[in-house]
């Protein structure tokens, strides 16, 4: 069989890779996404705070703030067509000490400098009347009205689904290890399989510098920064109305309290430098520290139970700004160092990369005529939306904590664009087993429903396998 030749090969299926794939597919490029995990979102993009940021506190004039604001705008433009949810919560940057209170002024001016004109300082009284669950030790806040909460998993999936409908390909379980450029085409290699494409876009997150080496000496070094989180039971989410953000100071990092789109309350993250690129563990002391901080800010948290704990690795570098650049003459674009704002910025980054491509490689950028975009309609997973069980999809609820029906599970396994092929993929597409019981009630049933459909399986290891 002759080897397929792609216009564009995107390495890495995080939110950035998915958005880039979408952008190029919609532009008419024959685009392939390669991901080493069993599903998209195997890196930083599966474990973040899920906030759609305005960029109010990003470094003014940076590429980051430009991409965030472009990404923010495009998300607002397209989310309804993709049926992606959004909670218009607003954010409050809360000062807990005099030192922090003194900084609020500066936060407002920086926000205004970044074009977030509606950011403004509010008094302690206004703060506590809006957030009566907060500890009375709060001193004041900056209100940022257009900070929102989104679904961090459905968004990138929708991007890739739309790309697939526009003709893009994807392959999971595919780790690119090396590559060679023949002057016209890149030939990327996994050791078992080769992929050829004219342009390579490196979106490999915490692996970014290693993959850059295939083409060039990277001008940066990845320094993963871990963030640990606690997800509280849905019962806790009514304790706050807005996203509660910390005032960053030299002495404290502070943590975020936010509702999730799924109706939980999220507390975190920590910020810890580490060497390992792939392993993000949770640690009891850090979790207990978060609980202590969270309960200090929001006393009502005590008594609510913890549904989940998780950690994510920010693909940070020694630099503050994103590291996005094209290598002239080598048909390679590196999209790196998208450390802590990539969910927001992804669509903006994709547009920037497309522009970079047409500026640098005008010969490649002359793609086929773009297809008419088809808009996949994502299933409703948001707590405030009308869920399948409420509509009555003719099937029973399987996961009681998250109220996931058998119909939803089967749809995620059966759908043709990007079906779930792993438990993680199924969980992110449906919320099954994501609830407070961690699968006490439904995991055996889910094992039955997914038999032969997901890898690794939930059960049924043969005795002779060790």
């Amino acid at each position: 069989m002759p080897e397929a030749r792609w216009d564009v090969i995107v390495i890495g299926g995080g939110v950035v890779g998915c958005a880039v794939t979408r952008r190029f597919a919609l532009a008419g490029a024959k685009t392939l996404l390669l991901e080493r995990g069993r599903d998209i979102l195997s890196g930083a993009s599966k474990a973040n705070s899920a906030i759609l940021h305005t960029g109010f506190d990003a470094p003014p004039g940076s590429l980051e703030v430009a991409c965030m604001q472009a990404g923010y705008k495009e998300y607002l433009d397209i989310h309804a067509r993709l049926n992606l949810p959004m909670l218009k919560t607003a954010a409050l940057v809360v000062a807990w000490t005099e030192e922090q209170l003194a900084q609020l002024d500066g936060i407002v001016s920086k926000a205004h400098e970044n074009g977030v004109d509606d950011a403004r300082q509010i008094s302690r009284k206004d703060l506590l009347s809006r957030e009566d669950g907060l500890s009375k030790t709060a001193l004041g806040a900056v209100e940022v009205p257009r900070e929102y909460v989104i679904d961090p998993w459905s968004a990138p999936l929708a991007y890739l689904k739309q790309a697939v409908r526009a003709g893009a390909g994807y392959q999971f379980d595919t780790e690119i290890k090396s590559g060679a450029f023949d002057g016209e085409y890149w030939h990327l290699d996994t050791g078992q399989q080769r992929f050829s494409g004219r342009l390579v876009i490196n979106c490999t997150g915490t692996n970014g510098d290693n993959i850059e080496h295939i083409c060039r000496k990277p001008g940066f070094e990845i320094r993963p920064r871990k963030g640990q989180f606690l997800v509280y039971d849905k019962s806790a989410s009514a304790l706050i109305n807005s996203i509660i953000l910390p005032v960053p100071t030299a002495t404290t990092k502070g943590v975020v309290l936010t509702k999730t789109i799924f109706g939980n309350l999220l507390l975190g993250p920590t910020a810890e430098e580490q060497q390992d690129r792939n392993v993000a563990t949770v640690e009891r002391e850090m979790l207990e520290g978060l609980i202590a901080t969270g309960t200090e800010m929001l006393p009502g948290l005590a008594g609510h139970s913890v549904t989940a704990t998780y950690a994510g690795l920010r693909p940070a570098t020694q630099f503050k700004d994103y590291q996005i650049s094209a290598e002239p003459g080598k048909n390679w674009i590196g999209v790196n160092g998208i450390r802590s704002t990539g969910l927001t910025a992804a669509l903006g980054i994709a547009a920037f990369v497309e522009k970079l491509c047409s500026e640098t490689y005008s010969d490649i950028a002359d793609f086929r005529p773009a297809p008419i975009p088809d808009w996949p309609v994502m299933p409703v997973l948001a707590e405030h939306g009308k869920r399948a069980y409420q509509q009555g999809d003719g099937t029973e609820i399987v996961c009681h904590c998250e109220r996931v029906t058998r119909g939803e599970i089967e749809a995620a396994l059966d759908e043709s664009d990007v079906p779930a092929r792993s438990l993680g993929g199924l969980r992110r597409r449906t919320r099954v087993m994501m609830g407070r019981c961690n699968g006490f009630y439904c995991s055996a049933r889910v094992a039955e429903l997914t038999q032969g459909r997901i890898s690794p399986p939930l059960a049924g290891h043969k005795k002779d396998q060790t």
Partner: protein
Amino acid sequence: MSSFDIDVAIVGSGPSGIAAATALSQAGFKDIVVYEREADIGGIPRHTHHPSFGLRVFKRPMSGPKFIAALVRRCPDVRFETSTTITALRPGGVLELANATGLQTIRARHIILATGARETPRHGRLVPGLRPQGVITTGALQQFIYSAKLRPFERPVIVGTELVSFSALWTLRHAGIKPVAMIETGPRISAYRPATLLAKAMGVPIHYNTEITDISGIETLTQITTLTRGNKTAAIPCDGLIFSGCFTGENTIAAASHLCLNPSNRIPLVDQNWITSDSAVSVIGNATHPADMGDQCYLEGIKAGAYVAQLLAGNIAMDKAFAEIRHGDGIKMTTPSILRSDNFGDPLFDLSFHVTAPFKGTVCISHGEQVIYEEPRNCLPTRRITLRNIPFQAGHPIDLSLIGKSDVIA
């Protein structure tokens, strides 16, 4: 004409729900429905197949499914609606329910929540490490082995040494799966000592004073790391981890409703007749006292159902107001948690509670300055302690306290 759809709606078809339905049915009520979100009735016993039920109700040991079948034979007229989830409880006897056709509301003269208990899984316990597949609970294990007939792993470790931990051991033995070890944070097992015999017979070591410091494996579990006595680290290769015990009530519906809750554990307040702050709602079974034996829950459900029958028959005038049962340090929860007087029933009540740490000393109930009950007791955290025939004083809060040494080995 009443605007009620039915007389009594019972949520949950475990032993306590079936019992309440039985008592009501025997009292002549026809219009009662038991709602069950699973496809089959029975609650926990549905998937607990060893003979740990029936001793008190039928005077012989029975498997969970046999126990349930025998209980159902006692209430042939009761209607069960399965694959039906109650999604909300509202004032005025209103329940919102979801089934294959969508949402619906019904109104009942009285509602009995019998939603049971489950184990606290890994995340709720803040156990460190990664999140691989293969980390489950005993309840899930039972459903894998008995309901789905699937093997989730071959070499698991069991966390905990409560009765239910040995239940996990039993289930594994049935499936021919040999666990690698059991681990216990304390210096002795939480269940009665003879339970260790089963572990011995299966050749499964129990590591005491041991906690998990790491869970490894990106996709599937590869090993855990443990710390014993705060200084000895060990790696235990395994492909499964079963978090057993550490029960918690399944009070999702109650906690999201108008019912008054105990703020420290978000369990709905119930009086000595299992009536909540809303006199048209009862909560019974392990939802409020995770977790007692199935037989106990059944017997409780019979009493609670009989009380509701009297209430609906108009034979009881109940005070709207209630008094709190307060408790001091070392006590996790009490049932009842409030007291309410009526013109019916006993001026004495029984009080059950659980301790947070082993305790040896005097259990004391006082009403203001006055001590109304005193008894020397040995208490272990996983066991229910019941004080009987406590004099009841309408309208006054009482205090339960432990006088003596906590943290001693009983």
